[in-house]
């Protein structure tokens, strides 16, 4: 009996609703004929209708009964505070047809105080800033159309499924590259928040522009002949804001330059602020193509809030500064064999600022298969303890320079402690900049400018070791490269790749028998040329003799 009562109680509302069907209502209210609010019956919302005909005045239906969570969020929102109801945005009878977006009321919102307003408003959902977000999403959609497909190995050569800044630079350059044509890149910053939680105040810039902000990794979709789904480092798309704490560690911060020394107004910083201190450099820069075209201010390349000074940046980091504008750099360097590979180890000004001092900068990396991962300070701390001063550990005699013995000892120690394949990677970067980057048709467009033992950067070598977030460059002295086993440097084609010269023939003719082995070692791969040329000459001589005999015999 009890069970029957329970069933009756449970079914009672249905029985009650069922007594007045939608058809009954539509008999009078035929304008709602097409109305669809899910499977909801009219009397489920208009629940004060007990019988027909119903009272003239009905109470306002409550959305809360079904949409409790949204209603609760909405109650705390600015819209609720202003007295707006569900109906102001939703047409409850035709929810699919009409749903008012933010723009239907806020079309003229000025956002005057929002920096880079146009950029933000174009790509960022209103709710990212005006909602209570905890985890939003960046979606990057790239359409390569019917052009050549881009292989996954090219996009993500290290195969970690995550596009880092270097890989993004390459991808952008590839999208610009003919015959691929311009690939469309569409960036969207989507709110995944409860849409009813519109707040009175927008979130602070830090909510997005900081580590651990509401945006996590970006989801990259590449559509075209070959489609790929990958993730990308969010920092590529959302620059981090400087913090006062970080600022103290910057070059400017360390020199006790106050915020107000540069930020004298709310206006963007212009070059005159920088020239107050850097006037001699600006003297060189102001007559260059960059400056004359008015396209580049100091801060377009130099981020004064960046903890790492420009000279501490690695080659790919420097490259990423230039390619923000020079996206077609791969096309422009088609002549350079293995363009992408070169740009792993070079920065633009290695060639385009001939008067700058170039150096070979070594750093430690770990090899895992084909991947080469730079060793960060955190990795070093795990090995050498917290707050380890690597400079002191490498430079054992404390003379401020690194010699072969010191580098070798540290390298062996590192390999032993890490139990991994440690390698010394190198790049060629400018260490003393001459601020003229106008050189276009560079005369040094010959491989031996770099691929030669006489290359200028062998005169200036540094070891870069991480120290906290920064990198310290320690001068390297002496014959470091030749001292290491060939396995460490085998693929660094820059080394010892001397070209054959007349004096090499001379030296092999004059060499004493006991020095022959040493000379052959010194000649290295040049020996191939030497043997090749000698054999060619022998064959030509043989031909000459043959020709001579043929002429003599014929006579």
């Amino acid at each position, binding site marked *: 009996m009890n069970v029957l009562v329970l069933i009756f109680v449970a079914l009672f509302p249905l029985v009650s609703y069922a007594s007045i069907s939608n058809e009954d209502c539509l008999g009078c209210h035929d304008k709602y004929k097409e109305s669809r609010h899910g499977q909801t019956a009219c009397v489920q919302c208009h629940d004060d209708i007990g019988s027909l005909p119903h009272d003239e005045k009905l109470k306002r239906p409550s959305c809360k009964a079904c949409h409790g969570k949204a209603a609760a969020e909405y109650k705390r929102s600015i819209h609720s505070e202003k007295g707006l109801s569900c109906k102001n945005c939703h047409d409850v009878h035709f929810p699919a047809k009409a749903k008012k977006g933010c723009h239907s009321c806020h079309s003229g919102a000025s956002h005057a105080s929002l920096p880079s307003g146009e950029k933000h408003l174009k790509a960022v959902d209103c709710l990212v800033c005006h909602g209570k977000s905890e985890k939003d999403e960046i979606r990057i959609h790239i359409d390569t159309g019917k052009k050549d497909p881009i292989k996954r190995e090219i996009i993500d050569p290290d195969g970690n499924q995550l596009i880092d800044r270097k890989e993004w630079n390459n991808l952008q350059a590839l999208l610009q590259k003919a015959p691929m044509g311009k690939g469309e890149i569409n960036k969207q910053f989507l709110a995944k928040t409860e849409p009813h939680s519109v707040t009175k105040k927008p979130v602070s810039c830090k909510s997005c522009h900081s580590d651990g902000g509401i945006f996590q990794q970006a989801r990259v979709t590449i559509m075209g002949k070959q489609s790929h789904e990958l993730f990308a480092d969010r920092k590529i798309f959302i620059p981090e804001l400087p913090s006062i704490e970080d600022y103290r560690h910057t070059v400017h911060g360390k020199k006790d330059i106050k915020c107000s020394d540069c930020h004298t107004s709310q206006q963007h910083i212009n070059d005159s602020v920088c020239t107050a201190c850097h006037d001699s450099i600006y003297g060189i820069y102001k007559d260059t193509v960059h400056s004359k075209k008015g396209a580049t201010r100091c801060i377009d390349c130099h981020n004064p809030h960046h903890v790492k000074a420009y000279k501490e940046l690695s080659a790919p980091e420097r490259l990423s500064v230039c390619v923000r504008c020079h996206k077609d750099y791969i096309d422009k360097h088609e002549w350079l064999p*293995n363009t992408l590979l070169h740009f792993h180890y070079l920065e633009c000004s290695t060639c385009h600022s001939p008067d700058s001092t170039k150096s070979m900068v070594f750093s430690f990396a770990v090899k895992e298969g084909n991947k080469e991962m730079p060793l960060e300070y955190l990795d070093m701390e795990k090995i050498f303890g917290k707050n380890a001063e690597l400079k002191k550990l490498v430079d054992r005699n404390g003379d401020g320079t690194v010699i072969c013995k010191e580098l070798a000892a540290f390298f062996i120690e590192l390999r032993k402690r890490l139990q991994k394949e440690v390698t010394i990677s190198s790049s060629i970067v400018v260490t003393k900049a001459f601020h003229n980057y106008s050189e276009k048709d560079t005369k040094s467009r010959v491989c031996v400018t770099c691929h030669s033992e006489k290359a200028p950067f062998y005169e200036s070598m540094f070891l870069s070791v991480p120290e906290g977030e920064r990198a310290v460059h320690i001068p390297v002295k002496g014959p470091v490269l030749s001292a290491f086993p060939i396995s460490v440097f085998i693929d660094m084609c820059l080394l010892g790749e001397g070209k054959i010269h007349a004096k090499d023939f001379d030296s092999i003719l004059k060499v004493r028998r006991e020095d022959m082995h040493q000379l052959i070692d010194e000649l290295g791969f040049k020996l191939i040329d030497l043997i090749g040329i000698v054999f*060619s000459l022998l064959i030509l001589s043989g031909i000459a003799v043959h020709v001579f005999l043929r002429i003599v015999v014929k006579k």
Partner: protein
Amino acid sequence: MSKLYLHPLPLRIWHWANACIVLVLIMTGIQLRVPSIQILHDYRYVVLLHKYFGYAMAGSFLFWFFYYLATGGLTKHYLMGLQDVKSMPQQALYYVLHIFRGEKNPFVPTPDSKFNSLQKLAYSSVMLVFVPIIVITGVLFSDILFFFSWIKALGGLRILDAVHVAAAYVFILYLLVHLYMATLGPKLHSHIKGMITGYEE
């Protein structure tokens, strides 16, 4: 003097196209290897020419290989038999001695076997060993990142570079002899003419 049709049209076209490709590759290769020998003023074009003519060489090699494979020419003309090995001293003697006495070439080409034993040795080693080595290493260099694992497995970039250059020198040595031997026909230009018309005297 009777004439024999030895060189079909596709092979003649291939031969001269290949000759042009080889010429460009050697010229640019020399400047790449020793930049002080300036053949072209702009080094940029030297690099680009070497790259694209390198691709052309790869294509040219494939054409040659599959043409001979399809027509059965590889076994007919290039495969060395015991008879070839035996005839080698006599053939060599002809080139270094008997030719000056006005003696006739001991080898008479036929459409079924157009190369003498020394030619077979030279052509087969160049076309089946050295050219493939040059082409394969060259293609690997065209995209080091893409072929990285192959390059590593084959000994690394510097080793492959050395192999590429060494094989190229062998090719040059062969070419010097080949060019000279082309003048050893009944007349100075007989073989060259034969490679244009298809008929050898």
